[in-house]
Protein backbone atom coordinates (compact mmCIF):
# COMPACT_ATOMS: atom_id res chain seq x y z
CA UNK A 1 0.00 0.00 0.00
CA UNK A 2 2.70 2.48 1.04
CA UNK A 3 4.81 1.42 -1.97
CA UNK A 4 1.88 2.15 -4.30
CA UNK A 5 1.28 5.48 -2.59
CA UNK A 6 4.95 6.46 -2.89
CA UNK A 7 5.08 5.52 -6.58
CA UNK A 8 1.90 7.47 -7.30
CA UNK A 9 3.31 10.48 -5.48
CA UNK A 10 6.53 10.23 -7.51
CA UNK A 11 4.60 10.03 -10.79
CA UNK A 12 2.38 12.99 -9.91
CA UNK A 13 5.38 15.06 -8.79
CA UNK A 14 7.29 14.27 -11.99
CA UNK A 15 4.25 15.13 -14.11
CA UNK A 16 3.77 18.41 -12.21
CA UNK A 17 7.42 19.36 -12.75
CA UNK A 18 7.19 18.57 -16.48
CA UNK A 19 3.95 20.55 -16.89
CA UNK A 20 5.39 23.47 -14.94
CA UNK A 21 8.50 23.39 -17.12
CA UNK A 22 6.45 23.60 -20.32
CA UNK A 23 4.27 26.34 -18.87
CA UNK A 24 7.47 28.16 -17.89
CA UNK A 25 8.71 27.97 -21.50
CA UNK A 26 5.35 29.25 -22.74
CA UNK A 27 5.28 32.13 -20.24
CA UNK A 28 8.91 33.09 -20.90
CA UNK A 29 8.10 33.38 -24.60
CA UNK A 30 4.86 35.24 -23.89
CA UNK A 31 6.52 37.80 -21.61
CA UNK A 32 9.30 38.49 -24.08
CA UNK A 33 6.90 39.10 -26.96
CA UNK A 34 7.14 42.47 -28.66
CA UNK A 35 3.82 44.21 -28.68
CA UNK A 36 2.63 47.04 -30.89
CA UNK A 37 1.95 49.25 -27.90
CA UNK A 38 5.52 49.03 -26.50
CA UNK A 39 7.91 51.80 -27.46
CA UNK A 40 11.42 51.02 -28.59
CA UNK A 41 12.86 53.01 -25.65
CA UNK A 42 10.74 51.16 -23.06
CA UNK A 43 13.61 49.07 -21.84
CA UNK A 44 15.89 52.02 -21.16
Amino acid at each position, binding site marked *: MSDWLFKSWLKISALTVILFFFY*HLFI*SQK*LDEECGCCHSDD*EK
Partner: protein
Amino acid sequence: MEQNKDILDIQAAEQSSRKKKKFILCYHSLSVNNFKKASVQIRKLAEAAGAPISIAVVPAIGAAPESEAEQFREELEKFVKEGYEIMLHGARHRADLQMKRSLQGKIVLWISNNGAEFAGLDERFTQALLKRSLALWKANGIGKPSGFIPPIWFGNKYLKQQALEIFDYYEDYHGIYQKVDGKVKKYKSDTLSFSVYPPAVLGILQTYACLKMLLPGGAHRLVFHEKDFRTIGEKRILNMVRYISTMREKIMYRDL
Protein backbone atom coordinates in the same frame (compact mmCIF):
# COMPACT_ATOMS: atom_id res chain seq x y z
CA MET B 1 -30.78 41.07 -36.58
CA GLU B 2 -32.26 39.19 -33.63
CA GLN B 3 -29.78 36.38 -34.21
CA ASN B 4 -26.87 38.85 -34.14
CA LYS B 5 -28.08 40.17 -30.80
CA ASP B 6 -28.21 36.61 -29.42
CA ILE B 7 -24.66 35.98 -30.58
CA LEU B 8 -23.49 39.20 -28.93
CA ASP B 9 -25.30 38.25 -25.72
CA ILE B 10 -23.66 34.81 -25.72
CA GLN B 11 -20.24 36.35 -26.38
CA ALA B 12 -20.75 38.86 -23.54
CA ALA B 13 -21.79 36.04 -21.17
CA GLU B 14 -18.74 33.98 -22.18
CA GLN B 15 -16.48 36.99 -21.66
CA SER B 16 -17.96 37.62 -18.23
CA SER B 17 -17.69 33.98 -17.10
CA ARG B 18 -14.12 33.81 -18.37
CA LYS B 19 -13.26 36.80 -16.21
CA LYS B 20 -15.10 35.68 -13.09
CA LYS B 21 -11.68 35.44 -11.49
CA LYS B 22 -10.39 38.71 -10.16
CA PHE B 23 -7.04 40.21 -9.24
CA ILE B 24 -5.72 43.38 -7.69
CA LEU B 25 -2.84 45.23 -9.29
CA CYS B 26 -0.98 47.36 -6.78
CA TYR B 27 2.14 49.51 -7.08
CA HIS B 28 3.97 49.66 -3.77
CA SER B 29 5.97 52.35 -2.01
CA LEU B 30 5.23 55.48 -4.02
CA SER B 31 6.99 58.18 -2.02
CA VAL B 32 8.44 61.65 -2.28
CA ASN B 33 11.81 60.05 -3.10
CA ASN B 34 10.70 58.12 -6.17
CA PHE B 35 7.45 59.71 -7.36
CA LYS B 36 8.80 61.08 -10.64
CA LYS B 37 9.96 57.70 -11.92
CA ALA B 38 7.18 55.80 -10.15
CA SER B 39 4.39 57.94 -11.64
CA VAL B 40 5.49 57.02 -15.16
CA GLN B 41 5.67 53.34 -14.20
CA ILE B 42 2.23 53.45 -12.54
CA ARG B 43 0.63 55.00 -15.62
CA LYS B 44 2.24 52.37 -17.86
CA LEU B 45 0.88 49.60 -15.61
CA ALA B 46 -2.59 51.16 -15.72
CA GLU B 47 -2.40 51.42 -19.49
CA ALA B 48 -1.45 47.74 -19.75
CA ALA B 49 -4.27 46.77 -17.37
CA GLY B 50 -6.75 49.05 -19.14
CA ALA B 51 -7.84 50.90 -15.99
CA PRO B 52 -6.43 52.82 -13.02
CA ILE B 53 -4.72 50.65 -10.40
CA SER B 54 -4.17 50.69 -6.62
CA ILE B 55 -1.17 52.53 -5.22
CA ALA B 56 0.41 52.00 -1.79
CA VAL B 57 1.76 55.38 -0.74
CA VAL B 58 4.44 56.17 1.85
CA PRO B 59 3.26 59.59 3.06
CA ALA B 60 6.32 60.94 4.90
CA ILE B 61 7.99 63.92 3.27
CA GLY B 62 11.13 63.71 5.42
CA ALA B 63 13.90 66.06 4.44
CA ALA B 64 12.73 66.53 0.85
CA PRO B 65 12.80 70.14 -0.41
CA GLU B 66 9.44 71.94 -0.30
CA SER B 67 9.28 72.14 -4.11
CA GLU B 68 9.62 68.35 -4.36
CA ALA B 69 7.02 67.85 -1.65
CA GLU B 70 4.62 70.13 -3.50
CA GLN B 71 5.11 68.22 -6.76
CA PHE B 72 4.57 64.95 -4.88
CA ARG B 73 1.26 66.25 -3.48
CA GLU B 74 0.18 67.44 -6.92
CA GLU B 75 0.97 64.04 -8.40
CA LEU B 76 -1.05 62.29 -5.67
CA GLU B 77 -3.96 64.63 -6.27
CA LYS B 78 -3.78 63.89 -9.99
CA PHE B 79 -3.84 60.13 -9.31
CA VAL B 80 -6.90 60.46 -7.07
CA LYS B 81 -8.71 62.58 -9.65
CA GLU B 82 -7.90 60.04 -12.37
CA GLY B 83 -9.56 57.29 -10.31
CA TYR B 84 -6.52 55.52 -8.89
CA GLU B 85 -7.04 53.95 -5.47
CA ILE B 86 -4.78 55.02 -2.63
CA MET B 87 -3.68 52.66 0.14
CA LEU B 88 -1.58 53.91 3.04
CA HIS B 89 1.74 52.10 3.32
CA GLY B 90 3.09 52.98 6.76
CA ALA B 91 4.47 56.33 7.84
CA ARG B 92 8.08 56.27 6.62
CA HIS B 93 8.32 52.57 5.65
CA ARG B 94 11.72 52.38 7.30
CA ALA B 95 11.59 51.44 10.97
CA ASP B 96 12.50 53.81 13.79
CA LEU B 97 15.21 51.83 15.58
CA GLN B 98 14.74 53.78 18.82
CA MET B 99 11.30 52.22 19.38
CA LYS B 100 10.93 49.29 21.75
CA ARG B 101 10.22 46.02 19.92
CA SER B 102 9.72 42.36 20.72
CA LEU B 103 12.45 39.85 19.88
CA GLN B 104 10.38 38.60 16.92
CA GLY B 105 10.08 42.19 15.71
CA LYS B 106 13.83 42.68 15.94
CA ILE B 107 14.45 39.52 13.93
CA VAL B 108 11.97 40.69 11.25
CA LEU B 109 13.71 44.08 11.11
CA TRP B 110 17.02 42.33 10.59
CA ILE B 111 15.59 40.16 7.80
CA SER B 112 13.75 43.06 6.16
CA ASN B 113 16.70 45.44 6.33
CA ASN B 114 14.72 47.67 8.74
CA GLY B 115 11.80 47.95 6.33
CA ALA B 116 9.06 46.45 8.52
CA GLU B 117 8.13 49.61 10.40
CA PHE B 118 5.42 48.04 12.57
CA ALA B 119 7.17 44.76 13.43
CA GLY B 120 7.12 43.88 17.11
CA LEU B 121 5.69 47.15 18.42
CA ASP B 122 3.45 47.13 21.50
CA GLU B 123 -0.19 48.32 21.44
CA ARG B 124 0.54 51.93 22.40
CA PHE B 125 3.38 52.44 19.91
CA THR B 126 1.38 50.72 17.16
CA GLN B 127 -1.52 53.10 17.74
CA ALA B 128 0.81 56.09 17.80
CA LEU B 129 2.59 55.10 14.58
CA LEU B 130 -0.69 54.35 12.82
CA LYS B 131 -2.05 57.77 13.79
CA ARG B 132 1.20 59.36 12.70
CA SER B 133 0.99 57.73 9.27
CA LEU B 134 -2.60 58.93 8.88
CA ALA B 135 -1.63 62.44 10.02
CA LEU B 136 1.21 62.49 7.49
CA TRP B 137 -1.25 61.48 4.79
CA LYS B 138 -3.82 64.06 5.88
CA ALA B 139 -1.14 66.75 5.68
CA ASN B 140 -1.27 66.23 1.90
CA GLY B 141 -4.88 67.40 2.00
CA ILE B 142 -6.21 64.60 -0.21
CA GLY B 143 -9.19 62.31 0.68
CA LYS B 144 -9.06 59.20 2.85
CA PRO B 145 -7.10 56.14 1.71
CA SER B 146 -9.09 52.93 1.11
CA GLY B 147 -6.95 50.83 3.36
CA PHE B 148 -3.72 50.16 5.14
CA ILE B 149 -0.86 47.92 4.02
CA PRO B 150 1.91 47.47 6.59
CA PRO B 151 5.41 47.78 5.10
CA ILE B 152 6.75 44.31 4.06
CA TRP B 153 3.21 43.09 4.98
CA PHE B 154 4.48 42.60 8.48
CA GLY B 155 2.50 44.07 11.35
CA ASN B 156 2.03 42.87 14.90
CA LYS B 157 -0.83 41.37 16.88
CA TYR B 158 -2.52 44.76 17.44
CA LEU B 159 -2.18 46.36 14.04
CA LYS B 160 -4.98 44.60 12.16
CA GLN B 161 -7.70 45.54 14.65
CA GLN B 162 -6.42 49.08 15.04
CA ALA B 163 -6.11 49.64 11.28
CA LEU B 164 -9.63 48.29 10.66
CA GLU B 165 -11.00 50.81 13.16
CA ILE B 166 -9.75 53.57 10.85
CA PHE B 167 -9.63 52.09 7.35
CA ASP B 168 -11.98 49.94 5.27
CA TYR B 169 -9.31 47.40 4.34
CA TYR B 170 -6.18 45.92 5.86
CA GLU B 171 -3.94 43.31 4.36
CA ASP B 172 -1.10 41.03 5.30
CA TYR B 173 0.83 38.54 3.20
CA HIS B 174 -1.93 35.93 3.39
CA GLY B 175 -5.12 37.86 2.79
CA ILE B 176 -7.19 41.02 2.79
CA TYR B 177 -9.39 41.92 5.73
CA GLN B 178 -12.50 44.07 5.98
CA LYS B 179 -14.68 44.91 8.95
CA VAL B 180 -18.30 43.95 8.21
CA ASP B 181 -20.95 44.42 10.95
CA GLY B 182 -18.29 44.46 13.65
CA LYS B 183 -16.73 41.21 12.45
CA VAL B 184 -13.50 40.87 10.50
CA LYS B 185 -14.05 39.27 7.11
CA LYS B 186 -11.06 37.70 5.37
CA TYR B 187 -10.75 37.55 1.58
CA LYS B 188 -8.57 34.80 0.20
CA SER B 189 -5.80 36.58 -1.64
CA ASP B 190 -2.20 35.55 -2.18
CA THR B 191 0.55 38.11 -2.62
CA LEU B 192 2.52 37.82 -5.85
CA SER B 193 5.49 40.12 -5.36
CA PHE B 194 9.03 40.02 -6.74
CA SER B 195 11.05 42.73 -5.05
CA VAL B 196 12.57 40.72 -2.19
CA TYR B 197 13.76 37.77 -4.25
CA PRO B 198 17.18 37.31 -5.88
CA PRO B 199 17.29 37.80 -9.68
CA ALA B 200 18.08 34.10 -10.23
CA VAL B 201 14.57 33.01 -9.18
CA LEU B 202 12.58 35.84 -10.76
CA GLY B 203 11.83 33.87 -13.96
CA ILE B 204 10.31 30.97 -11.99
CA LEU B 205 8.37 33.43 -9.81
CA GLN B 206 6.85 35.09 -12.86
CA THR B 207 5.72 31.69 -14.14
CA TYR B 208 4.32 30.89 -10.68
CA ALA B 209 2.43 34.22 -10.62
CA CYS B 210 0.90 33.57 -14.05
CA LEU B 211 -0.01 29.99 -13.08
CA LYS B 212 -1.61 31.19 -9.84
CA MET B 213 -3.70 33.66 -11.83
CA LEU B 214 -4.63 30.98 -14.37
CA LEU B 215 -5.94 28.62 -11.69
CA PRO B 216 -9.23 29.45 -9.98
CA GLY B 217 -9.64 30.85 -6.48
CA GLY B 218 -8.83 34.02 -4.58
CA ALA B 219 -8.51 37.65 -5.59
CA HIS B 220 -4.73 37.58 -5.70
CA ARG B 221 -2.60 40.69 -5.46
CA LEU B 222 -0.04 41.33 -8.18
CA VAL B 223 2.43 43.76 -6.65
CA PHE B 224 5.20 45.75 -8.30
CA HIS B 225 7.86 48.01 -6.85
CA GLU B 226 10.08 50.52 -8.60
CA LYS B 227 12.96 48.05 -8.31
CA ASP B 228 11.09 45.40 -10.36
CA PHE B 229 11.30 47.58 -13.46
CA ARG B 230 15.09 47.23 -13.24
CA THR B 231 15.31 43.57 -12.23
CA ILE B 232 12.45 42.06 -14.28
CA GLY B 233 12.30 44.71 -16.99
CA GLU B 234 9.46 46.90 -18.14
CA LYS B 235 8.52 44.84 -21.18
CA ARG B 236 8.10 41.63 -19.18
CA ILE B 237 6.13 43.39 -16.45
CA LEU B 238 3.71 45.02 -18.89
CA ASN B 239 3.33 41.77 -20.87
CA MET B 240 2.62 39.94 -17.61
CA VAL B 241 -0.09 42.47 -16.72
CA ARG B 242 -1.62 42.19 -20.21
CA TYR B 243 -1.54 38.38 -20.08
CA ILE B 244 -3.10 38.22 -16.62
CA SER B 245 -5.74 40.78 -17.64
CA THR B 246 -6.94 38.34 -20.30
CA MET B 247 -7.59 35.70 -17.62
CA ARG B 248 -8.82 37.77 -14.70
CA GLU B 249 -10.72 40.98 -14.17
CA LYS B 250 -8.65 43.69 -12.52
CA ILE B 251 -10.40 45.15 -9.52
CA MET B 252 -9.46 47.49 -6.69
CA TYR B 253 -9.72 46.88 -2.96
CA ARG B 254 -12.92 48.92 -2.84
CA ASP B 255 -14.52 46.53 -5.40
CA LEU B 256 -14.07 43.48 -3.18
